């Protein structure tokens, strides 16, 4: 793109009576709907031609950074290569055209994939049951906590309404607990990034429904006392929830089930490389151990033998009367599930392991190089998992170079910024996740860019006004929130 070219809105291209004529049928006779139910205003949709539309959105796309064009080390987000085949195969006409309520006689192909995906995810997580229906990580969390609650309720344990979350937890964890009608009990992190075990002991009690953890944590380190944590929580009658956003770190190496977690959601759009699409769709499939099997959200694909053949069908309320119910209109983000399925089949069992191995290798290499270059790691004594944290608290103080400035300066170097200001407990932090699909050269070049920025800052260069080379300069977020302009008003 040419960053100096102003981006018009599609509405600016609109003219009365213009349209992409090939894309709609010709008008048919007027409808038989009573006029009082009809609309009598004209919604201002853009009236544009097909060439204009293609050009407009093609050019808009060019304004984005993306995995297909830039290194995008956004921590916790697992921005790895999205193989194109996964998309093409999920969109095979029979799959793309399949009505979700079509009979199972016309769905055995799709359903067999879903069944096998369930089986593979069980294996990968060490769980006993998997439901694919949650539509993103957060909805998977909701399913998980709802199951935990249902479990306690089913045992008559009505007082268990507290969910423990480490202070490093992703925002969706406490938000989910709230949505499930629970109270959040926050526990602090110890100096080396593990959970503060003493504080945890104090937090646990008869009201404990469960704990939400991710391991390795959002701090990029493995929770070493995980077994102790599990024993503590289980001992107190609570259950353990695994936030699977970080599964990329341990895929094929360690399984949440083996760590004694009771329930897990997976972000298939992270670990299993379905595209992030500029903000979704995701998929937050959940896995559970025996305890929670009866509570899984429906639908689930079941299989039975009929006349010597495997027949796949939908498990519903009748099969799982204790289910927490349905979370989506049909079957979750089915097409995302297909993409994940294809990806897993392309990786195979050995490929799974390599994911976590090389993701970890890249993170440790990058953290070593950055440390060597003078950047401060938040947990220098620890092994990085698939991600790690750099803190710029010194730079912020001595050079007035905040994490935000650094992030914007990186954009000008053609790198997407790492995650900034998360986890909240580390000051001026950059959470860096290179993923396994990036090459050593890319990491080396990124280190060079980091060093260049730091060096320039030391020489007095200010980055308050960065970025300079993007389609827009630094945006006024405060104004955005104060003077709300959320929809274009066509004059």
């Amino acid at each position, binding site marked *: 793109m040419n960053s100096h070219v102003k981006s018009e809105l599609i509405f600016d291209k609109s003219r009365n009576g213009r349209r992409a004529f090939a*894309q709609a049928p010709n008008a*048919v006779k007027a409808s038989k709907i009573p006029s009082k*139910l009809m609309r009598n205003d004209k919604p201002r949709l853009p009236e544009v031609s097909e060439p204009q539309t293609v050009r407009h959105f093609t050019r808009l796309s060019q304004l*984005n950074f*993306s995995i297909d064009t830039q290194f995008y080390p956004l921590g916790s987000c697992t921005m790895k290569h999205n193989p194109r085949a996964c998309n093409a195969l999920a969109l095979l006409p029979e799959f793309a055209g399949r009505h979700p309520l079509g009979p199972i006689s016309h769905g055995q192909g799709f359903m067999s994939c879903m069944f096998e995906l369930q089986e593979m995810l069980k294996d990968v997580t060490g769980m006993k049951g998997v439901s694919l229906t949650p539509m993103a990580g957060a909805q998977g969390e909701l399913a998980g906590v709802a199951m935990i609650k249902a479990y306690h309720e089913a045992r008559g344990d009505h007082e268990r309404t507290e969910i423990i979350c480490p202070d490093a937890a992703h*925002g969706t964890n406490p938000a989910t607990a709230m949505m499930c009608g629970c109270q959040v009990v926050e526990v602090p992190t110890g100096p080396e990034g593990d959970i503060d075990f003493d504080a945890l002991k104090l937090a646990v009690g008869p009201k404990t429904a469960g704990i939400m953890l991710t391991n390795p944590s959002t701090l990029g380190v493995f929770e070493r006392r995980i077994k102790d944590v599990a024993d503590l929580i289980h001992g107190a009658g609570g259950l353990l929830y695994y936030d699977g956003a970080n599964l990329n770190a341990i895929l094929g190496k360690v399984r949440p089930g083996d760590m004694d977690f009771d329930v897990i959601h997976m972000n298939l759009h992270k670990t299993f490389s379905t*595209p992030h699409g500029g903000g*979704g769709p995701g998929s937050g499939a959940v896995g559970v151990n025996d305890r929670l099997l009866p509570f899984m959200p429906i639908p689930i694909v079941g299989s039975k033998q009929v006349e010597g053949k495997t027949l796949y069908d939908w498990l519903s309320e009748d099969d799982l009367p204790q289910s927490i119910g349905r979370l989506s*209109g049909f079957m979750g983000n089915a097409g995302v599930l297909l993409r994940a399925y294809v990806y897993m089949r392309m990786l195979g069992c050995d490929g799974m392991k390599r994911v976590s191995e090389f993701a970890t290798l890249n993170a440790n290499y990058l953290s070593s190089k950055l440390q060597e270059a003078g950047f401060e790691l938040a947990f220098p004594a620890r092994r990085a998992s698939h991600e790690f944290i750099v803190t710029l608290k010194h730079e912020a103080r001595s050079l007035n170079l905040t994490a935000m400035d650094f992030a914007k300066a990186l954009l000008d170097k053609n790198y997407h910024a790492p995650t900034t200001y998360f986890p909240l407990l580390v000051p001026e932090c950059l959470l860096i996740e290179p993923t396994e699909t990036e090459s050593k050269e890319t990491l080396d070049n990124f280190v060079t860019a980091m060093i260049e920025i730091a060096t320039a800052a030391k020489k007095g260069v200010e980055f308050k006004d960065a970025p300079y080379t993007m389609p827009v300069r630094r945006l006024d977020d405060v104004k955005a929130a104060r003077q709300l302009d959320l*929809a274009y008003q066509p004059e």
Partner: protein
Amino acid sequence: MPFIPHTEKDTREMLQTIGVNSIDDLFDEIPTELKIDQLEHVPGALSEMEVSRFMKQRAKIDGSPMCFIGAGAYEHHIPTAVWDIATRGEFYSAYTPYQAEASQGTLQVIYEYQTMITQLTGLDISNASLYDGASALAEASLMAVRINRHVKSGRVLLAPGVNPIYEQVASAIAGAQGLTFERLPTDITTGNVDFDLLPKDSDPVAVVLQQPSYIGTLDDVNRLTDWAHANGALMISVVNPISLALLKAPGHWGSEGADVAIGEGQPLGIPMSSGGPYFGFMTCKKKYARQMPGRIVGRTTDLDGNLGYALTLQAREQHIRRSKATSNICTNQGLMVTAATIYMSLLGYEGLVNVAKTCHHNTALLADGLSAIDGVERLFEGPFFHEVALKLDRPISSLLEILANRNILAGLDITSFVGSDALLICATETKTQEDIEVFITAFSEAMASVNTNSA
């Protein structure tokens, strides 16, 4: 190592830099007893060629039947340009636009989407999407509770035509916060709300009306909206976006307009693909902006005073507000919204009108043709959009099976919902006159081959 670029030399050098001997050493903080050696139920890797062939075989099993099912997911023509552009790497492989300056493409698309969807629904503001239509009802109900804070009943009243699955989903999601979903009384001749039997003093948080309804009917949106407001409830509309080319926009329902409108965005250029990914849309009156769940994009200016776009009102969201957020939603359905925005641009208002009218016309043709068959009649009186419920005097499952064997998906069996043998049919603009005739003929043959219920 299909997607991993490391050469052996790279790996060696990197390990050296880190100061370990092997990749396994990098996992040394993990208790050994937890580690596994081998996944046992994941088969070996397939190459892209192998997996392509395999998936094509799987797809073939499902076939491409002629589909007359609607019930929340609709087959529409999708212009080729929509997905050609939406799957461009820059859209497809970007994250949520956290770094606004490097994500103006996605952000502007969402701003345009928000504009279009407010125009369609006649309301002021829109979020950037929710997961789907069903979960959007849960979010809208929770939003109603936040807005209508003085109402403590937790009671959400659903019109008879609200999709039963939406009710289930809303209960599953919002139930934990004490919401209950109750049905308003039905007029059995029209399938719509029986206004004579509306409850008094029910103190509802919100009233929900789906137009067109799950069972294909069109209700008196004005009257129910006014009733809701008169009873202190928020009015939530559930609408089909294509239908809004013809039908009254929620913002104009009753004297004040609905407060929140939600719906399933799938008809706007998203393939049916077994149920997802779709997207839920949500619009509302401006005054409720701060109670809205989900991402919202705003227009602002940059350091040079030029216009630009950024996520805004983030203080509502989980990553800032954590347990006090308006919702836990984080990842939404961004790519689907991109596709829908391109779809709406290519169709425009007039194009959408033509699509909507053709759907209506085709469904009318189909309903007329089927009703002429002995033993088939319309279940409800009154107008419809592009779905119609039929009452049949034969067991529906047998009919459906016979027709499925002829590669026709004849509609959805809604017997359990309406309580008598009933079939919900739909014919969108994708059906030709000939298709409709083929279906009617096949249907009447199927009817002839099955005994009546009484027999």
